[in-house]
């Protein structure tokens, strides 16, 4: 890649990073309770985090598979993470096995709270 193109490309990319970070910041514990939804090609997921520290997650796929999980959640101030146990392993390909717990980043954006599931595919529970 010519030197000039490299420089322009780097600047565009740095601007994109700054722009993204400017619209996003860590969430607070009081932001967390509520109803979240994720929609993907494989189906939808609904997550309700209750104020008392319990949650219910319901996932349904287009093939008719339905899974419901109930458990507990806690929030940690260390980089604002949500710990849910147990938890369904979800990615852009679908719904996988139940794991003992999930440790997920929670971010605020303008008007939304997002629980990150698979960042490279923009997959997140949104409220």
């Amino acid at each position, binding site marked *: 890649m010519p030197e000039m193109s490299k420089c322009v490309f780097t600047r*565009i*990319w740095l601007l*994109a*990073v700054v*722009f*993204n*970070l400017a*619209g*996003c*910041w*860590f969430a*607070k514990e009081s932001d967390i309770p509520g109803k979240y939804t994720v929609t993907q090609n494989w189906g939808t997921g609904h997550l309700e985090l209750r104020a008392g520290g319990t949650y219910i997650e319901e996932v349904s796929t287009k093939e008719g598979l339905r899974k419901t999980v109930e458990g507990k959640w806690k929030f*940690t101030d*260390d*980089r604002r*993470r949500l*710990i849910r*146990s147990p*938890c369904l*392993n979800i*990615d852009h390909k679908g719904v996988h*096995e139940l*794991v*003992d*717990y*999930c*440790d*997920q*980043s929670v*971010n605020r*954006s*303008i*008007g*939304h709270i*997002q629980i*990150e*599931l*698979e*960042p*490279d*595919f*923009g*997959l*997140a529970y*949104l409220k």
Partner: protein
Amino acid sequence: MKVSLAVQRRREEYIQQGCPASASLASSHFEAYFDSFVPKGLNAGNFGVGIIPIMNQTQFQVGGHSGSIKKAGGIVNYTVTNTAGFSSFIGRSAFANTFPVFGLQANAWDNPFGPQGKMHNVDQIFQWSETDPCQK
């Protein structure tokens, strides 16, 4: 990746949870970039990204990632999976969720010149193991 702050935080949580059989090992782009810029031990609060230099260049390249922690036979296996794609690189996969009102598809810019063309997706996997830290 083994020494990235995001991974270390999740390892500490894994130990606090009593080293169960399985857990997720995911981190957001925001957390990864924030960590990459901010020196370890400095808690900059809710806002603000530290000043260059980048502290962990591997973590910075990988950014947000997925992954798992699995225990079998007294050995804990850590796996970090990452798709290095153009949408992620340019920030679109994060932007789509940061501003969902625009209805953007997060990965619309992946493989801009086809799956084998320039800037095509590259799947990265980082794996390492250790003896069950709860048994040490």
